[in-house]
């Protein structure tokens, strides 16, 4: 089996929970009043935004905040990050992606939440791992595989060989 087909099936799988998550974003817990905030207020990380992001990072063991969706990433760095998670064999059931382009409050809020200025951002068990460059270099030096293995978020080996 070629690497490409493993990869694309993994990508299709990772795509599944995103739809779930779009609906989560519109759940009442994600306060709809966000968009009505004045621009100045919106710059400060309000308690409600912080709370919503706390919930978002706890949605799954592996959480990626990205531009676009896993099926249609809208930035090369988000694309690279989602591809790496697919290649690593992250279990789609343990993965959630949030599209920051759908919510300006989330887009700004997530940068302040971790004090990290760029998107994508990867979280593992609520802990910030890094942005695209860090994920890429961890993928290359093997430390990402090790970390994902430790946290048991990969598709079980016997399932994958079916």
């Amino acid at each position, binding site marked *: 089996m070629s690497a490409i087909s493993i990869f694309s099936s993994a990508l299709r799988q990772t795509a599944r929970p995103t739809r779930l998550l779009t609906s989560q974003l519109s759940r009442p817990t994600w306060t709809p009043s966000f968009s009505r905030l004045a621009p100045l207020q919106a710059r400060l990380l309000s308690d409600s935004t912080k709370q919503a992001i706390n919930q978002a990072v706890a949605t799954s063991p592996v959480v990626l905040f990205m531009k676009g969706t896993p099926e249609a990433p809208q930035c090369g760095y988000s694309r690279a990050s989602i591809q790496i998670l697919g290649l690593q064999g992250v279990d789609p059931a343990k993965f959630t992606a949030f599209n920051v382009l759908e919510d300006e409050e989330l887009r700004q809020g997530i940068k302040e939440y971790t*004090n990290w*200025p760029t998107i994508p951002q990867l979280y593992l068990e609520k802990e910030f791992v890094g942005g695209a*460059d860090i994920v890429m270099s961890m993928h290359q030096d093997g430390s990402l595989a090790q970390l994902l293995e430790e946290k048991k978020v990969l598709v079980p080996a016997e399932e994958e060989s079916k």
Partner: protein
Amino acid sequence: MPSDPSSAADPATNHSGVTAESLAQKLKETLGASLVEIKDMSGGCGQMFEATIVSEQFTKKTTLARHRLVNSALKEEIAAIHAWTPKCFTPEQWEKRNQSS
């Protein structure tokens, strides 16, 4: 006619106002970087930069901590651009890297 510094630094209307030179200057000042190489990958709009930074201050810091150090030094600049790819090395790492390649 006296030149307006803001418009002089902003030749294209949608330019971010961030240049490779301004980034390098600030990194040298705040991080005491011994080497800063910044490539503008944006093709003119000033939205995308790749940086190689060598500083003593990266010693014994993880990649994440190094990036945080750089990002906090350039907080306003990074907020104005789309893509920022720092590559951080300590002087020893940089030397090793140059020897091996």
